[in-house]
């Protein structure tokens, strides 16, 4: 049996008690700081939210009381700005926020960029992009000389794309990390028109993820300027590129010339034939009917279904389908036409 003296036990208890008290005091202090921080932030929000509204939207004169004094007030301003940016579009508001941030928040975020904690650095990078703090571009570049995470580099790319598109293209060419298509899309959607167009010009030099992201971003932007670029990609050797380009053209929804699409009616890939069936929705039925009739007799159910749907969407579509039923010997196609007619008449 271990023999412990009473003195020793009391000493251990006393030490543990002191440690516990110290720990309790630390927790108490931290809690108090947090409460003070929150209180100070909430007071700023309560007192100055209306002043911010007046300054940003009603052209009131800027008041010096809005200048932050300490971290809690910076956080309050962050909350106001992010709420506005998330909900309101207004060029004048953005310009005022940018100027204010460059003048009064710059130092706070510059310090945050050098912080040891990853979350603080990330928050600063997010704010630099959101508030368009272009004066911190050099500080951001300096961050690259330190050890940074993949997420931080992604935010840096976002910042470069906003403030220095040339540098963005350089950096993305030699990626320090591979990003997913959706991440690239998030970057490309912010790009100015001219910079984004450059991705089409040097299309083959990009990685597959970037190529896919470029096509999908063009589709999401629904800008007619990209029609020509996407049509050029229809001759690409990669089938996935072709399918995505067709999908992009369908999303934009303007077809000026049917000829580039005709060869795809006989494509060996059913996905391509399906997309063409969808795209023909934007072409008058008098031009597209012969090809849609061909697709209606396709071996693939999805293609047949889409072709019938596209025909039925036209004003004379139901008549065309009824006519087709009367002379066609393709049972599958006739069945699809009948189903589509029933569905269409049922929704009227």
């Amino acid at each position, binding site marked *: 049996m271990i023999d412990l003296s009473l003195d020793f036990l009391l000493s251990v208890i006393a030490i543990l008690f002191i440690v516990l008290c110290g720990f309790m005091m630390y927790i108490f202090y931290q809690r108090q700081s947090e409460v003070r921080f929150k209180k100070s932030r909430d007071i700023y*929000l309560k007192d100055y*939210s*209306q002043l911010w*509204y007046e300054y940003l*939207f009603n052209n009131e004169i800027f008041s010096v009381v809005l200048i932050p004094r300490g971290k809690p007030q910076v956080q309050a301003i962050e*909350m*106001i700005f992010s*709420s*506005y*940016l*998330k*909900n*309101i*579009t*207004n060029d004048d508001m953005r310009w005022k926020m940018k100027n204010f941030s460059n003048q009064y928040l710059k130092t706070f975020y510059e310090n945050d960029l050098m912080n040891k904690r990853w979350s603080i650095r990330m928050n600063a990078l997010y704010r630099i992009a959101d508030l368009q703090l272009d004066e911190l571009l050099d500080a951001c570049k300096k961050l690259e000389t330190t050890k940074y995470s993949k997420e931080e580099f992604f935010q840096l790319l976002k910042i470069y794309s906003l403030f220095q598109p040339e540098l963005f293209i350089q950096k993305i060419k030699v990626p320090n990390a591979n990003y997913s298509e959706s991440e690239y899309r998030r970057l490309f959607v912010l790009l100015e028109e001219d910079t984004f167009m450059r991705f089409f010009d040097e299309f083959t030099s990009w990685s597959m993820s970037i190529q896919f992201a470029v096509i999908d971003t063009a589709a999401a932007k629904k800008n007619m300027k990209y029609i020509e670029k996407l049509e050029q990609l229809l001759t690409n050797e990669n089938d996935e590129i072709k399918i995505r380009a067709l999908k992009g053209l369908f999303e934009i929804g303007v077809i000026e010339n049917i000829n580039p699409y005709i060869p795809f009616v006989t494509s060996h890939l059913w996905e391509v034939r399906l997309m063409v069936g969808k795209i023909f929705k934007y072409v008058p039925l008098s031009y597209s009917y012969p090809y849609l009739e061909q697709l209606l007799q396709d071996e693939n159910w999805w293609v047949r279904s889409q072709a019938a749907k596209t025909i039925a969407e036209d004003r004379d579509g139901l008549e065309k389908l009824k006519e087709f039923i009367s002379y066609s010997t393709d049972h599958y196609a006739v069945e699809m036409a009948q189903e589509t007619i029933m569905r269409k008449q049922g929704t009227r």
Partner: protein
Amino acid sequence: MNEVIFAKDIMLEQDVKKYFEIMLESAIRSHMTITTIFLKCVHSTSSEVNHSNVNTQITDFLTENIRKTDLLFQLADGEHWGIIFLQSSDVEANAFLKRIFHLLKKDSTLESRVALKASITEIRNNQINFEILVEKNKALLADNNQQQWWIEQIEDYRLQSIELVKVSIIEQNAIFRKVLETTLNSMDIANFTFDVTAYEDGYSFLQSNTYQSGHLHLIIMNDILPRNNGLEILHSLRTMPNEKRFLIYMMSERNSEIAALNAYEGGVDEFIVKPFNLRLLEAKIKRTFARYWL
């Protein structure tokens, strides 16, 4: 003594009087404008003119030229005709008068000395009754020195009463909620006044019972909300009796056609994708209320 002659098949003053107040109240409740025209012959006292013929001819002419929704009647003195235009403003009334005056001037079948003058009253409030309407218009057309084809206008009843509109903002973000509240409170819309209340979630709005009042109710809400989301509120409101009094604007972060389609099919009046311009929201609201009165 001149005998008062009325054309056959025309409503008379005493008949119209019974219906006028019902028409007026119903029109105001539906935010519609009523406009009346009173017409009088300029040379009807001339001995060379056959009063009986003139009366019949003018009545027939007016009957042929009014719309099915307009009500033609003759006053008890036999010298005035009245027309009530439902859902029409003075613009339509002026256009009507110009058209019939033009036709009358070139109509060779009417007695050559016949010419008319008219008065227009645009009505958008219920501070008038039929007696006053008749009295004022008769007084306006009483001056024998008025020229042929003269048109007078009574403007005393064209201003509608100020109507209270309940406004509910349902938005989770406190800062943006306050922005919307300030914006809506500072909006100046002619003839309407806003009573703005803000809620942070759907449940507190549904518990408030403000939507059960009979007022016109503008609701600006997010599609995604804690405790009863926007689509649930939309469904609750649109299944209520007299649901047409709700003007529902739905805000959403989802910039997708499907989301907008679902919202419109569910019964929203406007679907607004965030972020949006506050001035655009104001303009949309102003347009919505401008449509309330012709």
